[in-house]
């Protein structure tokens, strides 16, 4: 018999660690339908056929955030056989708040009491039996990070699900709230049964004033009016409003329960240690320099030490493989056209992106460490007031910063942001952070046009990108994203050593995701660019680049760029090939000018551009749409090809406008 378990719990309670313990590495990662909230599921180890679905980390079953809504919908519609509710023993009061709401759903349920070791180590204790008796559900103490108690948890969960054993208790309230819930229960009983919604849950949500629930139940006008009266009476009797009344009721019950079952002499050792660490890491003056230092260290390790080295090896490996295949093709007397397609098209294109993979993976390793250690939340705390001005929160800071390395992991890192709005807006702004693949372009152009100021020019470009990003953010905030941002009311979890297993698993999933999603599109784009570059419209191989389809396209599109000062087809051709990977802009110029290397190219470039035109070209390169690999990531994280297309148009439009402004201003100044 195959059972489905839902794993639910707060953020920072060790849910992912438990999920990994339950499933091992056999996980399937996807999205909940219609939203970009991640949905992971996997088979329970040693119990094949039994599935556990990891629900997003939430604090409540309110109808406000996408995460809460998908959790509700999943529990109500998919009706899993049992809920495994993970609760952090170190933070039991707030964690139990979700537990009480889950219990209203009247589903078989087990409570996994995590981090019990931290409680006992600091002299505290929890009377697990009493807790279980009071709540009327099974409680299993576990230490997810060390795998303790997992077997028992699984056994109990399966037993509870097979027996369909419901929580023995559902009434946590007394007095006025109790009266209101019961009165409403009577009215909506039939509606709840028809809609297939647990009665108790429905009644409680109606007392809270939950709009979606009102619609689900399809209650007629008269009854809605009666319900309103009942709630009004309750509000008057209590002297508070409906939402506060229920939150208060739940927390009051929990406070009493905790007083009976939990002995907590003081903050745990981990919490005390966190306070000490925070004296430095969120210090008034040190915090920002430390954060910048951490990010610099991550970039240095990624690009120069680990990722860079691995990338070089990967590059060598790809090169060897390419030579091997080329020799085999020659030996097999494959036609030169096909050979060029395979070698210069597929291998070169895919290879250039693939050799970037180690960098992406290493960046993800560090991102995962930042997140799991608890430092990411501190960065959000420290940086929030900067990003608030453009309508985002501090949580978007790290993904945007990663954008300076590579847009692909940066866009993928937005997965952990709460709410669709923040996520989408952050993704739209990431490409304004100039990625590292554009550096070779800046280098060649500054060597050609501003040899004495090349460092300054590059810095100016980065800053120009950031400023444009800020302007774009302000524009978005006041137009498309005028809606309500997710409230910035966020837990600062205790610092913890990230588990290696979780980190590696996370890294592997992201790498796999990137390869699977990006490979096809990169492959297709590489082939397409090769075809454009190598063939003319009669599908004959061209010997001169100026006869290719790409050149023709370049000539055709070039007038669009004439107002920006670079209406030559070579620039357009380079920009098009740059879509495969930005550094390709340089190699295309090399090819088209017949130069043998970047030095010769730098000497040849002044034949195409004046310094002002070159500046305009650089500005456009800085800002125009990201490469196909990044676009694949955008499409994935936004969950819609149309929205990704929107980003493409938005980005390229802004690039055109900014380059036009720079060029026009330059002309006006007589440059």
């Amino acid at each position: 018999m195959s059972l489905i378990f839902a794993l639910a719990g707060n953020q920072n309670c060790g849910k992912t660690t438990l999920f990994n313990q339950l499933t091992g590495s056999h996980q399937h990662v996807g999205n909940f339908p219609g939203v970009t909230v991640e949905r992971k599921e996997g088979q329970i180890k040693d119990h094949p056929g039994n599935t556990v679905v990891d629900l997003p980390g939430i604090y409540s079953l309110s109808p406000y955030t996408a995460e809460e809504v998908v959790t509700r919908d999943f529990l109500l519609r998919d009706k899993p056989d049992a809920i495994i509710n993970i609760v952090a023993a170190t933070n039991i009061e707030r964690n139990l708040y979700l537990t009480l709401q889950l219990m209203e759903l009247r589903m078989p349920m087990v409570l996994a009491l995590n981090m019990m070791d931290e409680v006992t180590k600091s002299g505290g204790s929890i009377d697990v039996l009493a807790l279980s008796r009071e709540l009327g559900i099974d409680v299993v103490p576990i230490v997810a990070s060390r795998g303790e108690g997992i077997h028992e948890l699984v056994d109990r969960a399966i037993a509870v699900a097979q027996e369909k054993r419901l929580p023995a208790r559902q009434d946590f309230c007394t007095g006025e709230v109790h009266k209101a819930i019961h009165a409403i229960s009577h009215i909506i009983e039939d509606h709840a049964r028809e809609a297939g919604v647990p009665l108790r849950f429905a009644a409680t949500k109606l007392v809270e004033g939950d709009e979606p629930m009102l619609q689900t139940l399809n209650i007629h006008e008269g009854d809605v009016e009666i319900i309103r009266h009942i709630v009004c009476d309750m509000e008057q009797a209590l002297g508070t409003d409906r939402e506060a009344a229920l939150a208060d009721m739940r927390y009051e019950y929990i406070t009493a329960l905790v007083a009976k079952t939990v002995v907590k002499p003081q903050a745990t050792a981990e919490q005390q240690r966190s306070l000490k660490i925070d004296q430095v890491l969120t210090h008034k003056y040190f915090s920002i320099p430390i954060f910048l230092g951490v990010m610099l260290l991550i970039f240095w390790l990624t690009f120069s030490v680990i990722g860079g080295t691995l990338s070089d090896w990967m590059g060598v490996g790809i090169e060897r493989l390419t030579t091997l295949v080329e020799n085999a093709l020659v030996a097999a007397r494959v036609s030169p056209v096909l050979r060029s397609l395979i070698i210069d098209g597929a291998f070169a294109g895919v290879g250039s992106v693939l050799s970037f993979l180690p960098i992406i993976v290493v960046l993800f390793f560090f991102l995962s460490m930042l997140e799991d250690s608890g430092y990411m939340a501190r960065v959000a705390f420290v940086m929030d007031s900067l990003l608030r001005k453009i309508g985002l929160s501090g949580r978007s800071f790290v993904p945007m910063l990663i954008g300076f390395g590579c847009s692909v992991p940066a866009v993928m890192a937005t997965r952990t942001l709460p709410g669709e709005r923040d996520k989408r807006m952050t993704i739209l702004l990431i490409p304004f952070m100039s990625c590292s693949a554009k550096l070779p372009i800046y280098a060649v152009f500054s060597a050609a046009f501003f040899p004495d100021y090349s460092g300054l020019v590059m810095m100016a470009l980065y800053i120009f990108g950031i400023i444009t990003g800020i302007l774009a953010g302000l524009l978005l905030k006041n137009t498309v994203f005028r809606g309500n941002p997710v409230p910035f009311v966020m837990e600062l979890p205790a610092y913890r050593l990230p588990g290696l297993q979780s980190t590696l698993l996370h890294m592997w999933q992201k790498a796999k995701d990137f390869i699977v999603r990006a490979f096809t599109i990169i492959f297709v784009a590489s082939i397409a660019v090769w075809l454009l570059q190598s063939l003319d419209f009669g599908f004959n191989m061209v010997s001169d680049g100026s006869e290719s389809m790409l050149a023709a396209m370049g000539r055709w599109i070039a007038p669009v760029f004439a107002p920006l000062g670079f209406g030559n087809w070579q620039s357009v051709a380079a920009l098009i090939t740059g879509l495969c990977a930005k550094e390709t802009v340089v190699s295309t110029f090399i090819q088209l000018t017949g130069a043998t290397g970047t030095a010769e190219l730098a000497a040849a470039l002044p034949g195409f551009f004046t310094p002002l035109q070159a500046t305009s070209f650089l500005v456009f390169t800085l800002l125009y749409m990201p490469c196909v690999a990044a676009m694949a990531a955008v499409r994935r994280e936004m969950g819609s090809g149309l929205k990704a297309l929107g980003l493409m148009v938005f980005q390229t439009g802004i690039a055109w406008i900014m380059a036009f402004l720079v060029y026009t201003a330059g002309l006006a100044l007589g440059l």
Partner: protein
Amino acid sequence: MTLDELSIGQSAVVTAVGGEGALRRRLLDMGITPKTSVLMRKKAPMGDPVEICLRGYELTLRLEDARKIEIRRAKA
């Protein structure tokens, strides 16, 4: 007085939670309910947001949102 006026290191008891919609619900869900005691832990380097301690955990929120939480200063 309101929560944003509490100085660092001081404790207070929540008396009422204002605001509306998603924000208010979030504050309540996170355990900021009447009679809860809160401790002002620190302010972020740029003065905003703030970090408070309640129900045995650390929470950060913005000053403009803290302004919506009524408190009574705890007797020392």
